[in-house]
């Protein structure tokens, strides 16, 4: 029967529709753009690492001396060792504190949990640069609180030490560990704990033997994330370490790359490259361990009410401990920076109300170079962030929802900037601009910064949008395709509208991140394109803590306005993952 039909089916003069759409060009465009964006800052660094003279010097020639020089330099090894020590100490503190807070605030009956939950994530919104200044104002050698303690005749501490730097860094990254652990606790199926209870274990034992192990993926993930971020972090070590000459990789690259009299370009390139390799290794390790940790992922399905552990009398002990932590690490520093901004001098010896002034603010707002930096930061965040979200969304759509052959590769590309510390992205872009002739015209524009920011934070946006794309059934796109829509048509009319909440959340995340960003800009900014972060560092060089605090206060106000507006008006939750 079939044979007969096959005969007639064969050489029918079939009508064929030639089909044309922009789908492929757009997908390829996104791929190529991402590729360029990732390669752009990388290649001048690679090139420079094997050149004996600066890239702009036409007499340069190939050499491997740079590697030899750096790898035999004991100072470099000292810096590397110090960096690793600092990174490990900061990471351990922030993960332990973050995980403990996550359990205390979500699974026990400790009083004031709601309040604390809002307070302890504040450092997430604050630039680490500002956090460092804030700590100096309160806990620095001449800090307000330090002086108070000293007056009581009690021993004080040294903030300008590896320990001090680590504690401040840990405070800054603690919210990351806290947020990952909280969401993993929220996903864990409470029935698992119930099963342990029925099997005969007490409430604390059940929490400890079932729920805490289930946090392992979150712990592993946040540990490596914070480790990587700490190695990349410039601001806190720079501000706290410079007075006592403590150097880590990021500060070493910065001070030698920018301030040095005779800049050793080759050496910087080698150190930058080695840092990127180190971070790449850690990121790869992170991916591998996270993949292995799959077995701990429980599919909760329904969001059931978690079991609450009754702490009894201990609940007040924990309450006091958490309260002390929040006051010392978050409230006091931020109050300090506010007080400093509104006073001529902040000291326990002087009644602050007698020296209240707005001079610090007028200095910032009346100096065009300073006020310009606020405008620039906001412009880059608002416009660059919007362009960034769109680009990152299209990127994620191409990776997860197209049949482009290279979509897997695009996924890796989009995540690769994770291995680039901000300072190195800045150097890379700067050198690339030096190399490309005739590009001077746009060199001073803030959009160069926006481009570099987008590159640096591509992984952030990509990973923030991806889960939402994956949670949209692909039958929805398929139904639209069958209805006659092209891939782009589906993206426009089906997926992007459904992604609206995720896109808004990512946009707010980028707004905050771009406002905080300073490391990328340090090398890249030019007169006219300074941003808040670069101005803060400039003011810090001049040693003006009043204006620093005023500018920091302005940035904090802008950030919190964004957060509150987005929550109240748009209903956006940034870290609800």
């Amino acid at each position, binding site marked *: 029967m079939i044979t007969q039909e096959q005969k007639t089916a064969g050489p029918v*003069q079939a009508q064929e529709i030639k089909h044309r759409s922009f789908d492929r060009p757009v997908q390829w465009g996104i791929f190529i753009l991402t590729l360029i964006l990732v390669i752009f800052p990388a290649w001048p660094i690679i090139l420079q690492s094997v050149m004996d003279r600066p890239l702009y010097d036409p007499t340069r020639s190939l050499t491997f001396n740079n590697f030899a020089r750096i790898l035999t330099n004991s100072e470099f090894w000292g810096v590397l060792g110090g960096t690793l020590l600092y990174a490990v100490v900061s990471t351990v503190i922030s993960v332990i504190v973050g995980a403990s807070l996550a359990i205390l605030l979500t699974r026990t009956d400790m009083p004031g949990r709601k309040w604390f939950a809002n307070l302890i994530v504040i450092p997430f919104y604050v630039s680490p640069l500002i956090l460092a200044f804030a700590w100096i104002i309160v806990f620095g050698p001449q800090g307000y609180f330090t002086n108070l303690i000293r007056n009581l005749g009690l021993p004080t501490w040294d903030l300008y030490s590896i320990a001090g730097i680590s504690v401040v860094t840990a405070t800054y990254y603690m919210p990351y560990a806290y947020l990952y652990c909280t969401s993993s606790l929220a996903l864990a199926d409470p029935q698992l704990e119930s099963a342990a209870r029925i099997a005969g274990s007490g409430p604390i034992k059940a929490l400890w033997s079932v729920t805490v192990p289930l946090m392992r993926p979150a712990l592993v993930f946040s540990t490596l994330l914070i480790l990587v971020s700490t190695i990349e972090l410039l601001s806190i070590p720079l501000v706290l370490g410079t007075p006592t000459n403590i150097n880590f990789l990021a500060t070493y690259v910065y001070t030698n790359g920018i301030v040095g009299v005779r800049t050793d370009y080759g050496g910087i390139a080698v150190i930058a490259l080695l840092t990127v390799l180190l971070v790449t290794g850690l990121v790869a390790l992170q991916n591998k361990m996270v993949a292995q940790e799959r077995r701990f992922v429980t599919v909760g399905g329904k969001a059931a009410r978690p079991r609450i552990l009754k702490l009894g009398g201990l609940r007040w002990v924990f309450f006091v401990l958490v309260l002390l932590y929040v006051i010392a690490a978050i409230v006091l520093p931020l109050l300090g920076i506010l007080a400093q901004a509104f006073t001529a001098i902040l000291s326990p010896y002087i009644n602050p109300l007698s020296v209240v002034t707005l001079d610090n603010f007028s200095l910032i707002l009346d100096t065009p170079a300073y006020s310009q930096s606020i405008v620039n930061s906001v412009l880059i965040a608002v416009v660059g962030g919007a362009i960034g979200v769109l680009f990152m969304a299209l990127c994620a759509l191409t990776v997860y929802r197209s049949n482009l052959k290279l979509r897997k590769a695009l996924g890796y590309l989009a995540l690769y900037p994770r291995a680039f510390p901000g300072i190195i992205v800045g150097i890379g872009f700067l050198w690339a601009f030096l190399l490309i002739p005739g590009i001077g015209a746009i060199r001073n524009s803030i959009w160069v910064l926006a481009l570099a920011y987008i590159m640096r934070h591509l992984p952030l946006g990509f990973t923030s949008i991806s889960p939402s794309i994956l949670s949209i059934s692909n039958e929805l796109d398929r139904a639209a395709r069958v209805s006659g829509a*092209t891939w782009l048509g589906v993206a426009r009319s089906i997926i992007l509208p459904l992604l609206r909440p995720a896109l808004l959340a990512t946009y707010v995340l980028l707004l905050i991140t771009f406002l905080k960003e300073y490391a990328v800009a340090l090398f890249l900014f030019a007169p006219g394109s300074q941003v808040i972060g670069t101005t803060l560092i400039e003011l810090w060089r001049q040693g003006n803590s009043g204006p620093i605090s005023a500018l920091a206060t302005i940035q904090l106000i802008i950030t919190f306005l964004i957060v509150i507006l987005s929550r109240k008006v748009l209903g956006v939750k940034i870290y609800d993952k």
Partner: protein
Amino acid sequence: MNELVVQGLNKTFGAVKVIQDVSFKVAAGSLTTLLGPSGCGKTTTLNCIAGLESPDKGLIRVGDLVLNDMSRHHNLPPEARQLGMVFQSYALWPHMTVRDNLNYGLRLKKVKQAEANRRIKDVLEMVGLGELSGRYPFQLSGGQQQRVALARAVVTQPRLLLLDEPLSNLDAKVRENARAWLTEFQKRLGITTIYVTHDQSEALAMSDMIAVMSKGKLIQYGPPGEIYEHPTSRFVAEFIGDTAFLEGTIAGQTNGGVVVQLHGNQSLTVDTDQPWRTGATATVTIRSERVEVDTEKRHQSNIIEADVRTSLYLGAKWQHTVETLAGEMKVETLSAINTNKLWLYIPPTAMILMAPEEARSEEAAPSIP
């Protein structure tokens, strides 16, 4: 006419051959079911037809429109194929009302709005949802969503309608109504339809033709009656209906049949139009509902002795698992039985003989010459 021709379809995922040389033809206006166990490649076949997957080899044509001709690297994207499709999850766009869901494809086909409105109204009335056009999908029941999905699939007047287990998310009762309703709807529109299911009763009830698939191959293709009455392989017989397989050897010839000697020194006369050599081994295929339970041993021949193992009360009938010397099988009675020993009478016309290689498993070659 929009008949569908699928010819030499092949698809691999990595190293796994998910579809192997699948060919069939669906007459214009008829409904063909792709039937088979989970993972046999039904959805993949459907997706190849829809253009959602691209096959490695093969030709797919609807009427005079060639959808795929892989030998010439011709592969239309889904949006150019003029198809309608209903997905297992219905895939109604949650941010659009029922009306907008239906309008979407019409707008893309540049149908004038007045005409579009008329068609949407007609189709919604046809599926009995005229008043619900302003609702969002989450405001509809499962059955209503399923009908909206169907309306959306046909409102563009596609050449071909593809349905991937559209009833599997419905409750048993709703499903049975939907079955009848859907068949009637399809006949009324006269639209060429491919229907994917792994539910054999659904396939038997709804189809003009059934294509039974297994492990990416087309095992048997024919009308429901033929598939049920004359399975050409043990796989098909096993997959459709409760079937017992008893091994035996051909002991002699009768008028219009053969005598099969079973284990345990029992024999059955089986009607067959195939020539069977005496002494050959054969498998007797028996449908449980064709077996008559004969407690008093009224029949003289074609009777075998059985011990009752378990009895299940199914409401309208009883189902017993019984053991004979030749093997285990299932039988049905209308009322409870209270003995442990039974006699089973199997009419000569109720059995099919299969050669061992045919009967062995689903590896059997498809019945396509």
